[in-house]
């Protein structure tokens, strides 16, 4: 086959390059510039302020509250989402009648719009809603989930675990399918128990998939916004104000886009750090070859 000239390659890539420059690079550069200015979209006369916005964020207790809420969200959902997704994947992997029904059923929430899901759950969680009706029928106490400062964030987290697991289940399924059957057959011949087969074969060989799920889910969870916007608007008592919701308010209620950009870059730094740590952690446990 004849090697194509660089010009042809560039030419074929150019639509993507133009789109990336316009909708990827330019906003990225613009927000980086905005983060060191007092830029406000509705006020003329933008001034360079250096790192003042970053300093202001680090000194603002509201930012730390938002970061703490986000951290709580990440720590409180990812282990459950991952475990549930893996459990569902293991459950629907073997062939049994109706397998497709369950696979599709578990996956459906991840193709439904978050806004729609949030509106549904807002109704489910209402004081006189179905969730509380069920709890009362069981003789349990029924808090007003989204109004009580103690339960509002956990309620949103529960919804997130439920709605996100289906997507990661599909990824785990793909990972499981890639494990050679022979390994399980050999292990069985050697008399390995189901638990041994899971911990000695399935888990180690799923490690790359697990890493992918962890990193992607962490990045997504750090950016949680739509659920909060629809269900609680950051309340009660700021208990559900996440970093992205906080920066949204700074940008679009206070028109403080420079400051909001700085907050976005701080979140970016946190995300990058966490993703790097996860990769190190999961990779370092890889068996030496």
């Amino acid at each position, binding site marked *: 086959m004849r090697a194509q000239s660089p010009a042809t390659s560039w030419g074929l890539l150019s639509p993507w390059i133009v789109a990336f420059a316009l909708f990827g690079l330019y906003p990225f550069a613009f927000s980086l510039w905005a983060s060191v200015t007092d830029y*406000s979209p509705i006020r*003329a006369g933008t001034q360079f302020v250096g790192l003042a916005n970053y300093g202001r964020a680090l000194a603002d207790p509201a930012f730390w509250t938002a970061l703490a809420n986000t951290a709580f969200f990440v720590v409180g959902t990812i282990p459950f989402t991952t475990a549930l997704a893996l459990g569902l994947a293991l459950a629907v992997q073997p062939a049994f009648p109706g397998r497709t029904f369950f696979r599709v059923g578990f996956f459906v929430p991840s193709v439904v719009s978050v806004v729609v899901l949030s509106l549904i759950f807002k109704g489910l969680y209402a004081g006189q809603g179905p969730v509380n009706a069920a709890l009362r029928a069981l003789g349990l106490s029924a808090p007003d989930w989204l*109004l009580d400062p103690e339960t509002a964030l956990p309620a949103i987290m529960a919804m997130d675990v439920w709605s996100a697991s289906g997507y990661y289940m599909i990824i785990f399924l793909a990972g499981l399918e890639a494990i050679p059957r022979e390994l399980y057959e050999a292990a069985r011949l050697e008399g390995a128990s189901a638990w041994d087969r899971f911990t000695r074969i399935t888990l180690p060989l799923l490690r790359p998939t697990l890493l992918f799920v962890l990193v992607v889910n962490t990045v997504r969870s750090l950016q949680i916004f739509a659920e909060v916007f629809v269900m609680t608007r*950051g309340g009660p*008592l700021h208990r559900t104000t996440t970093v992205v919701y906080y920066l949204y308010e700074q940008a679009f209620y206070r028109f403080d886009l420079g400051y909001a950009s700085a907050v976005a870059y701080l979140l970016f730094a946190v995300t990058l750090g966490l993703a790097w740590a996860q990769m190190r952690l999961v990779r370092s446990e890889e068996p030496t070859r």
Partner: protein
Amino acid sequence: MRSTWRRMWIGAWMSGLAVLISCAPAKQEVVFWQFWPVEVVQPLIDKFEKENPGLDVRMEQLTWQSGLEKITAAVAAGNAPDLCELGSTWMPRMLAAGQLVDWSAGVADLKSGLRGWELCAVGDALYGLPWVMGTRALFYNKTLFARAGLDSTRPPETWKELEEAAQKIQRLGGQVRGYGVQAGERYVLFKKFMPFAWGNGGRILSDDLRSSEIDSPQNREALDFYLGLRKVGLMERQDVLDRMFKSGQLGLQISGAWLVRSIPKDAPGLRYGVALVPRPDSERGTHASFAGGEVLVSFQQSKRKQAALQLARFLVRPDNALALAMAVQTVQPATLGADTTAYYRGNPEQLVMIRQFETAVPTPNHPAWVDMEEAIEDEVEQALHDRKSSAQALADAHRRLTELLAKGGR
């Protein structure tokens, strides 16, 4: 051959273009962004275009969810509409940004015919035209009043009567609750608490907007009263309270004219009344409420400021504002004397909203109002969730407002 074809094409294009240009009348286009359904506003626009043949209005409908973002983005990009409708709670931010056109001279002759000028004024300068007004009043369920042994033709007029009525209804038990205390939502809470504080003579800032007056005995008394209403009712979000009211499970709550509109559709059998927000005592205080509304403004960057003002002046005309208010029913015209029109004389619930506006209080037009509103709501919410005493909450609100005032507007 090929070049001949091309020449013919270009020629055809050019002549077509020339015909188009020569035929088009020299109409000036005015871009108008607003929040009402197009089918409601379009007849008004058609009427305007007929009266002003030289102007062509390009109207767009915004949503309350994303409208502010869209306006912000447009101003940033230099594409602001010529005329724009703004919610009164957005005005302090817009005024602080210095992007609105000073209309003082162009609207001076309208001053005696409209109310709500506080919403668009900084000192004596006017940066908009009040179009329609919206306030909050007391809604009560007449059936529950009768069941609780109360006179359903006499809504509570004082705090004491309100509390007693709520208590009697709360005692009916079952699914029924007395008073609906609004909670769990931002940007709404102060509209529910401040009516009692304002009615009690309390204030947020001093007249010159230089110092905080939130930590006053009047406001403390009002907050204690508001907190006490939790015992004779329940705390819920506005949409849940409205739903409960429509299903006949809620005795009393403060709500807006959107309920008047939706009740005939959602709960045609509901027997209810609308009354002024109760005042502290029959001898003392006022029936205060939150004064909100919709304001028409133009942006500095607009190139058709004169046409924008012309359209704004047309829209606030008594007949046009009334037509809009009658169609949407959630607001009332800013026109003084609208209450004497046949429509309002035949709609007692809507009429109460106009009466309520006469004693309603607008929020201070301070550049940092967004932060002030948040500070007040934060602290009142802390008290509602029993995290702070009323005295502590207001003392903390005072401290936060004072800090914001010291920083100045940004």
